[in-house]
């Protein structure tokens, strides 16, 4: 079943200034309607094969008053609960030109799904995320990924005063921070081989309620890790007429970890190509030019593989893929990144 959330009554909203406290804020914030822990990164095996990966844990809450009422009237099955957990796992085999993805969904019954409050510990079935050190585990069939992550910079908090705006309405916002550079090590079981892998990852943790306005259709998001030690995050919200929501923004994370918020007028993002999905027939942008004049950045961003679309059954399908970053003028390699494109197949409601 694809979960579409009902009107947000009875949830906490991300309007007031928020002071993040770590490690507590790595944990779950169950009073908000949605929350996710997003890991993307680039890995290299000992024998030189390159992989992109995504492991994302989601939490969504059903209207608590409905659940409480039903429990009172209908019964006490342990499967009744107001939190739903999901996880997506994708792997881009850059050299083999293959893309693999899988999903799991669970509710809190029997501990099948869960997210701890106060510390980073999320699980869906046997897939898990835990802290100290940050550890990821996902496996589907004979593909398995086990990673540990060491943050190289402190958490980068996006937006202003701990509030990251996503639209015109006051509540259209979230609390959002990233680990913009994590050193990653671990093991990948893929195509019958067990590979030692290492590389660099990015983590997003975001929670909020009612984040998107009904007139927003989805977003284009990218995280670029530049070879000069800086990182760039861009988050564009699209409206049905293909215009960009003025609240869209980004962040530039300096070498020392300082975060410089970027408003829409401080950067430019334009698609340089398109790709039509053979599975969902959605037309995605594919390739971008990114300009941040104040940071002297003029970059070309290119997918390492055009088809990195997650066609999902338990949530809307989207494109999430590893990208190459090159200098627009010299075509010199400048870094690597990940791009996320949602709302091209069906509208995303948060």
């Amino acid at each position, binding site marked *: 079943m694809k979960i579409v959330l009902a009107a947000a009554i009875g949830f906490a909203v991300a309007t007031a200034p928020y002071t993040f406290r770590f490690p507590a804020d790595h944990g779950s914030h169950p009073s908000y309607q949605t929350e996710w822990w997003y890991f993307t990164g680039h890995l290299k095996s000992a024998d030189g094969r390159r992989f992109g990966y995504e492991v994302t844990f989601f939490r969504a809450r059903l209207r608590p008053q409905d659940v409480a009422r039903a429990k009172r009237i209908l019964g006490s099955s*342990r499967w009744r609960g107001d939190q739903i957990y999901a996880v997506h796992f994708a792997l881009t085999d850059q050299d083999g030109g293959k893309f693999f993805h899988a*999903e799991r969904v669970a509710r809190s019954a*029997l501990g099948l799904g869960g997210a701890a409050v106060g510390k980073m510990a999320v699980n869906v079935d046997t897939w898990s995320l835990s802290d100290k050190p940050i550890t990821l585990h996902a496996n589907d069939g004979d593909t398995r990924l086990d990673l540990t992550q060491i943050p190289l910079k402190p958490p980068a908090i996006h937006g202003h005063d701990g509030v990251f705006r996503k639209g015109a309405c006051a509540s259209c916002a979230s609390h959002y921070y990233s680990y913009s550079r994590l050193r990653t090590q671990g093991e990948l079981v893929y195509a019958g081989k067990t590979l030692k892998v290492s590389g660099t990852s990015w983590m997003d943790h975001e929670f909020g309620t009612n984040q998107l306005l009904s007139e927003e259709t989805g977003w284009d998001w990218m995280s670029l890790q530049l070879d000069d030690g800086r990182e760039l995050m861009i988050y564009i919200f699209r409206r049905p007429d293909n215009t960009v929501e003025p609240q869209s923004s980004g962040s530039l994370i300096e070498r020392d970890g300082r975060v410089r918020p970027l408003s829409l007028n401080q950067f430019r993002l334009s698609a340089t190509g398109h790709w039509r999905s053979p599975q969902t027939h959605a037309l995605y942008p594919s390739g971008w030019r990114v300009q941040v004049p104040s940071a002297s950045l003029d970059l070309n961003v290119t997918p390492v593989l055009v088809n990195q679309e997650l066609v999902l059954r338990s949530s809307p399908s989207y494109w999430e893929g590893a990208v190459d970053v090159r200098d627009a003028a010299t075509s010199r390699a400048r870094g690597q990144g990940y791009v996320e494109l949602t709302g091209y197949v069906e509208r995303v409601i948060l």
Partner: protein
Amino acid sequence: MIAVWTLFRSLVLGYLWMNRLRSLVTLLAIGLGVALFVAIDLANATAIASFNSNVNIVTSRVNLQVLGEGRSFDERTLLRVMRVPNVVQAAPVIEDSIVVGIRRNDPNSGEILRVLGIDLLQPLPDGIDVSSKSDPYGVLEGQGAIVSQRVLDRLHQRIGGSFDALANGKPITLRVAAIVPRAVSAADSSVVFVDIVTAQELFGKVGSIDRIDAIVLPGKLEAVKAALEKVLPPGTRVVEPSTRTDEVRRLLRSFQVNLAAISLITLLVGAFMIYNTVAISVVQRRAEIGTLRAVGATRRQIFAVFLAEGALFGVFGSFIGLLFGYFLAQITVGAVAHTVDTLYVGTHVDRVIYDPLVMLEALLFGIAVAVVSAIAPATEAASTQPARVIGSRGFEQRMGKLALLLSLDGLVLLGLAYVAAQAPPVDGLPLFGYASALFIILGVSLLVPVGVIATARLLQKLGYRFSSAALLAASNFGGTPRRNSLAVASLAIAVAMIVSVAISVYSLRATVAAWLDQTLIADLFVRPLGVAGDTYDARLPANLPQRVRALPGVAAVDTFRGVEVPFRGSLITLARTDFRTIAQRDWLHVSGGANAETLARTLPGTTSVIVSAPFAERANLHPGDSIALDTPAGHTSFRIVAIYDDYANDAGTVMLDERTFNRLYHDDSASMFSIYAKPGTDLNALRTRVFRAALPVRLDIASNRDLRAVIFAIFDRTFLITHALNIISITIAVMGVVSTLFALVLERRREIGVLRYLGLTIRSVRQMVLYEAALIGVLGGLFGIGAGMLLGLLLIYVIDRQAFGWPMHLHVPYWSLAESLVLVLVAAILAGIYPASVAARIATADAVRAE
């Protein structure tokens, strides 16, 4: 050298066209045989497929299942399964049923729907879309249900609406959240999906599940199975989905094999007709064959040509059969599904699944039968000497001696039939019994020629006293013994089928009636309303039997509960009963081992059991033997102390004392109970009191008489399909009579012409043919009844006993035997009408000119 094709064209095609009516009748006969074969096979395949679809409805990738031994198990078992390495996914399933659409004044008007409680959060089968209705909560945990379009139409509902139903008799309301996609509902439109929360709460299964569907890395199946067996609690078992299907298939097997045997007999009648047709065509073209041989056609070529004629009938007839079968299957599938449903598992079949393999099998089989039936006449044709023109009668005249030889063979076959009937079943199937049936049919058929010749001689002597038409008929009858014998034999086989089925069904019915008189002695029988068939799986409120015992007018209450457990690859019922009362009330007819008094004294609280006679018969179990079954308390051995008669189901029942059952299963609930009223109690009033005591749970309360009527209704419905088969086979046989008479009339054109010239009236010509038809009818009927009696005995004492384990006593339905004799006579005379009118039209002058 003449090409076979040229021969074929000149000898066969032209001839068949000239005799197109007879060709057509032959085609139809083989077609009907094949059609029956196809229809029954498709119906069986569909019944199995619809059961399969229930197993694999959520995802076809499920390759391992964890099942409870006849009852739900702890939902936390799911975690143990998930944590086993190489288990890719594991999903909990709850299986139960509800009944919908009960009209106010007719408690039996509802439809039983199978409910699958699954984790609706998980990806659903393609096409189920519940996201467009923005009420995930209602679907997930608020009694939302996913229902097929057919059921929605029946309930006059649409998405967003709600409908009332009964779950274990308890009134509930479900909301329509989405429609089951056609791909799923096509196989079984009676399936309703609800969330596991809804299922647990509606069916009182909070904390437990009925099944776990797992997807396991295909290469690791055995390893995972072994690992699971270590971590699973007692009372659960790991199976591959096919195991379960096989268990059900095994349950249905006897029933299906019996149907298949009947369709084969029908095809045999078709084979007789092909034999007849080809034989006649060989006789009629003997002169041409002789000429062709003289100009260089070899024996082999002639043989090939007539074999090809048989094959031609086979090919076209089988195609016609496939077409008929296609439509016929839609009728039989209902009948089979219904029978299967009342006898065994709950399935719902909306649509025939046209398995191309079944079609191909039937096609090849039909052709093979046709070719084989043509071998004898083709050999006959090939033996023709070049250019030696022999009168067509030559073929018939050698019949006298041959008939004696054949009847000797026939007697030998009957002897073989007797020997085969003594053999034990093979793997639970009465294969030797079927062989014996075939020997009886062939044996009696071989006796027919002698009968025909003797009858003809006798009648020729007596004929003078009647009319010239009768005399002529008798002489014709004896003059072409071979063809007439075939017509008589075909008819006899059809009659034998009807008679034998009538005898066995009548005997079984009488035996069951006697059994019911002895065992059905309680006054009221109570179970939740809307529970399928003979199930022990329903659950009544726990304290209901106790409350009913306290009602005025109630002398005693016996409760029943049972679980389905696997035993030697099939399923049997382990039922709970109170053995202390067995002697007082004597509702069991103990036929072997300890008697009721001893059982009442020694059985309570022990692991000794009594088993049903069909089960004992088929599993070859005797008092003193032990059987081992898996229970939640682990592997348990049960000692058999007695056998009791049971005609209610042939799947097998093991009766265990209630104290032992409760100890092993931690389950003291009841699925049904029976009430013994105090003498003089008004049963209708008592019934109302019981009904009220259970509210809001709705009960289905049957009086002794109601239940008896229901049992016989089920019984008669079960055998309905055999009646349909009878009608078809007699139709084929009658077609054979038409074709034989028609051929004979054409062949005797000149003779009839001369007779007319000599003054025989048109009316007499007509009568002559009709008399001959009547002779075929009478002889067919008599031989048929003879063979039918033998087959009936075989069915009662060998086949049904071995297949179903039902011990029966012979009861001959004399009235229906007389009826079928009259029926076949009338049918034969009717079959004579058309040939008679053709004969009557033969112009005197034309025919005589040739002389």
